[in-house]
């Protein structure tokens, strides 16, 4: 695996701070940078100062300009496709270790979070991986929770690994793999088939969604996380959302999910909205106002709804949950600020910040870190 060094951090800081590298170097707390790099284990990895030479654990070795960066000891275990990149989970673990170390020993304290993320992303990139953080709000939550110790590096690495894709396409059938549980049920077999499909084609992460019935909770299958079950309240909310969209003769959109959530009558989302003074009737009235002027379509699923599905999975993983509850749906509705559900909630004074705060309060009051 290829590590970063102090010079890398200064170059990254120049871009993040929007200044030249001389200014960045003058502002850098080099001792903190060293502490962070040491904590993250970067010294054990290969490094390459500007194409002139490469530091390795065994000392300094010559390297021609433009030559591929060197590779460090211990890399064999984590080598990915074609021996070119570390394994997905190893890369995620090392990137999170770097981010965690930079959060605790910030070389640029005023830019602590930005520098940690920028360095982590750059570390992944030079090792052949790209992070797909399509829901920045969820990524911010992960960083904040990692910084405060509410999320362990292992949990954060698991979240990040699910969002990594090769920096450039791998040859067919040689994509990165993640060890998954052996298939033990039809659902697991479906999940495995989806993963194969995904990795072979290097396509965007697909979702298989089963809404479920009253007596059988549904869930989502993704290539990386496998199956994530809906809670009972979430299943009920989705059934109601489907009924709402049918009743209104519209493709299922985020606003129907919101109607389903508030109509479910119970669950963390409803409690959070109640705390913010938002009741079912107010939501229904606002949804009718907001969507009343919009043309109805024939598509079975509004495109914005697909974004909500993905965001919902992101939210669950970001919170370290292996299930999907109503609160994850509620957070996910804000993945597009201009969708009808987000607009309705904002109109009612329940913006993303307020909703996240209300859920956090409820969880704190109940003494739980996670909810069903």
């Amino acid at each position: 695996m290829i590590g970063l060094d102090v010079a890398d951090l200064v170059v990254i800081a120049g871009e993040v701070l929007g200044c030249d590298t001389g200014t960045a170097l003058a502002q850098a707390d080099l001792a903190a940078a060293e502490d962070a790099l040491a904590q993250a284990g970067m010294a054990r990895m290969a490094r390459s100062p500007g194409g002139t030479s490469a530091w390795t654990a065994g000392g300094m070795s010559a390297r021609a300009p433009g030559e591929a960066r060197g590779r460090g000891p211990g890399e064999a275990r984590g080598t990915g496709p074609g021996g070119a990149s570390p394994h997905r989970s190893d890369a995620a673990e090392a990137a999170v270790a770097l981010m965690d170390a930079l959060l605790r020993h910030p070389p640029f304290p005023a830019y602590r979070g930005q520098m940690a993320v920028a360095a982590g992303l750059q570390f992944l990139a030079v090792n052949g991986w790209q992070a797909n953080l399509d829901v920045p709000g969820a990524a911010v939550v992960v960083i904040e929770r990692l910084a405060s110790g509410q999320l362990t590096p292992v949990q954060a690495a698991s979240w990040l690994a699910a969002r990594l894709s090769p920096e450039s396409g791998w040859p067919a059938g040689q994509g990165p793999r993640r060890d998954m549980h052996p298939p033990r049920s039809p659902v697991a077999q479906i999940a495995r088939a989806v993963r194969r499909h995904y990795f072979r084609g290097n396509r965007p992460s697909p979702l298989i969604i089963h809404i479920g019935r009253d007596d059988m909770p549904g869930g989502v299958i993704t290539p990386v996380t496998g199956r994530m079950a809906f809670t009972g309240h979430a299943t009920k909310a989705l059934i109601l959302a489907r009924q709402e969209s049918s009743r209104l003769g519209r493709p299922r959109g985020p606003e129907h999910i919101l109607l389903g959530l508030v109509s479910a009558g119970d669950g963390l989302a409803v409690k959070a909205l109640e705390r913010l003074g938002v009741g079912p009737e107010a939501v229904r009235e606002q949804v009718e106002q907001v969507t009343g002027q919009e043309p109805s379509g024939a598509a079975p699923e509004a495109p914005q709804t697909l974004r909500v599905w993905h965001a919902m999975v992101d939210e669950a993983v970001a919170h370290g949950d292996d299930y999907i509850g109503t609160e994850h749906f509620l957070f996910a509705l804000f993945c597009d600020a201009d969708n009808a559900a987000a607009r309705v909630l904002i109109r009612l004074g329940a913006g993303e910040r307020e909703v996240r705060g209300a859920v956090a309060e409820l969880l704190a009051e109940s003494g739980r870190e996670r909810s069903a």
Partner: protein
Amino acid sequence: MVLRLDPALAERLAAVAEVEGRTVSDVAREAIAALVEARRSDKRFIRLLEDNLARHRRLLDLLRADES
């Protein structure tokens, strides 16, 4: 500036500093500046960095808002 250096490297830096009549700290910072300049000429590194920052601009903006 406090830097924990490999003893052999520290010895070399001290020697350079003594010959040139400067502090070890100055010599070390100058050495890092040279490394930074060299790194800036690594086109692949810079391209990846620029791509990454552009792709994750919104995330970085959100973090900046949190820190300010």
